[in-house]
């Protein structure tokens, strides 16, 4: 595949950024989106140019680090899929792809596509859990839970705190995260069905982690 990229480059927070054009040959449909960026960086390093900074960690859709705006959507075109779980077969040969950082005042740009999400981390820390004595855990098999309830409980735990809801909100607000998530549903999970059109929630499940 041949891919045209327009990537936001910004050396540091205080410097003016801009979109720069790159073109990549020999991208394979099996590559993940981040592997495609790795390929670009390897070529930039070889040419002694500054590689593109972007956040990533587990690349398994669990850690919530790899947030990018891809063609104007947080995590790209697929619903319930983080950037790292997006593969190049989603795009067509010759496509132009716009890659930008998550845009929100609360997520200041550190460099290129890297943003500082520590404000979001503080919300998660504050609301992560409460301490309440609930006695000894009962034998699990003695308390049958209806299947639909179990599924809903799983959905409620599916938020990985990636911040895509903030990046998607027109007001860059974390209100969706704090309200919906703490009532039991990750905001982007709710938003998946709304006309805001994002479904950045990474409810993959099924990993051995």
């Amino acid at each position, binding site marked *: 595949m041949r891919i045209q990229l327009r990537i936001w480059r910004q050396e*540091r927070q205080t410097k003016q950024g801009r979109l720069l054009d790159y073109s990549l040959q020999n991208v394979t*449909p*099996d590559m993940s989106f981040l592997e495609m960026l*790795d390929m670009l*960086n*390897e070529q*930039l*390093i*070889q040419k*002694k*140019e*500054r*590689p593109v*900074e*972007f956040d990533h960690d587990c690349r398994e859709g669990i850690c919530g680090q790899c947030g990018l705006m891809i063609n104007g959507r947080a995590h790209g075109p*697929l619903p319930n*899929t983080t950037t790292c*779980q997006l*593969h190049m*077969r989603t795009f067509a040969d010759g496509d132009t792809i716009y890659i930008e950082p998550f845009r929100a005042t609360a997520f200041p740009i*550190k*460099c290129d596509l*890297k943003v500082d999400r520590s404000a979001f981390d503080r919300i998660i820390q504050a609301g*992560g*859990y409460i301490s309440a004595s609930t006695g000894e855990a009962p034998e699990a098999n003695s308390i049958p839970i209806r299947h639909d309830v179990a599924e809903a409980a799983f959905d409620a735990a599916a938020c990985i705190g990636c911040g895509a809801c903030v990046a998607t909100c027109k007001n860059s607000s974390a209100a969706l995260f704090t309200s919906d998530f703490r009532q039991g549903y990750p905001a982007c999970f709710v938003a998946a069905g709304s006309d805001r059109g994002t479904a950045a929630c990474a409810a*993959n*499940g*099924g990993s*051995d*982690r």
Partner: protein
Amino acid sequence: MLCILDLSRAISEQGKGQIEEKYGNLFRMYQKITGINAYTEPMRISPAAHFSMGGLWVDYELMTNISGLYAVGEANFADHGANRLGANSLLQACVDGYFIAPYRIPNYLADEIKTGPVDVNHSAFTAAEKAARQQLQRLLNIQGTMPADQFHKALGRILYDKCGLSRSRAGLEEAIASIRTLRDQFYSELSVPGGPDMNSELEKAGRVADYLEVGELMCYDALTREESCGAHFREEHQTSDGEAVCNDQDFAFTSAWEWAGAGQDPIWHKEPLRIDYVTPTVRSYK
């Protein structure tokens, strides 16, 4: 090795809905990664090395052998047996982070309550900062032609092939020799663009430098363990039909390796496993 997992009979017997309810998330993951719909085409699967066991030595309160330095989550060895699957890493992250560290670290700090603010101009700070800067500058100064990723991948290949799903004495010895060669190459041909500011490539190079040390240590450790146990399958120790043969008589211990300085062989400490209520037995999947 390739296995074919054909679910067509299960789907025709139980219906697609049933299968979707049980395995829908796995099928979706599979489709994302491969682009293949496993409801209509057989799944192509393969055994793969996935996790490694072990980590930094810690005491019962998760403190390393450096007083006041704790290692929590997957970085320590505490909850690892010879095998670990199924949310073990999340368990460790959550249990260590939520329930152990907040109680054990104050226990340490309690003894420090009369210690005043530590002066950052203390000679230990200056020495540590100097050493860190020197290491970064060393990586930047190499100015070779190979990005850190290439070394990372080459090391991964060696470990996957020789210290992965199955291991042998000859393979592990080859791996140790290859890693030493790769490390020499790393320190003569590494290419890191940019300077010591925010620089992912420099950060990656630092990590790969560490991986080159720990990768060799993993081979070293695997070499000393003359048995097959859990995820550690030594080809020399198997039955005629390929089942693992463990040796609980001689290997009921955890190996802790002490860093003895650059270029020195690490020091081997054996921590015996005390098993009170169960008797280790052969686990057979047949």
